[in-house]
């Protein structure tokens, strides 16, 4: 069992937790947190699995840096929307059913 594999496994669990969180939680901020956990999980799998033999691999590392920037962009966007919704409706949750 190598460092890479350990963190890849942790990443797999993190991803699962994150997806479940985004789908099941109500509070928008918490869903955004869950999304970030999901992202971190994927990044760990990406680098950890690639480095399961123990050698560092710059390619997935660079991909993860790209991924982190994309994730922060998505997070900021989500927060902006959530805050706007809060301003307009006074709540941090989505309405239960989409209105027709």
């Amino acid at each position, binding site marked *: *069992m190598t*460092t*890479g594999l*350990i*963190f890849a*496994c*942790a990443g797999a*669990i*993190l991803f699962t*937790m*994150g997806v479940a*969180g985004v789908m099941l*939680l109500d*509070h928008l*901020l*918490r869903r*955004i*947190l*869950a999304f*970030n*956990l999901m992202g*971190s999980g994927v*990044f*760990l799998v990406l*680098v*950890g699995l690639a*480095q399961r033999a123990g050698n*560092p691999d710059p390619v997935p*590392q*660079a991909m*993860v*840096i790209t991924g*982190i*920037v994309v*994730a*922060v962009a998505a*997070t*900021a966007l989500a*927060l902006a929307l*959530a*805050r706007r919704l*809060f*301003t307009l409706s006074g709540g*941090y949750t989505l309405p239960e059913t989409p209105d027709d």
Partner: protein
Amino acid sequence: MSADLAFDLLLAASLLWSAWRTLATPDIFRAVILFIVFGLLMTLAWARLSAPDIALAEAAIGAGLTGALLLDAIGVLRGRKQP
């Protein structure tokens, strides 16, 4: 079991624990703090994975900026400041 392996396992466990608390803790402010802790633990994990570039990026962007953004949003939520 070597020390490295033990440290890795412990770190992974802490990661998962902080992630779980982030989602499960009832107070949203604490959740964000736990998320920042999670981010710092991630930084350690990246260092263990011999990825110092990611560690730097994670510390600055992942934990730092995202944490600040979330805290700011909570400030709005708590009504401490005008949105």
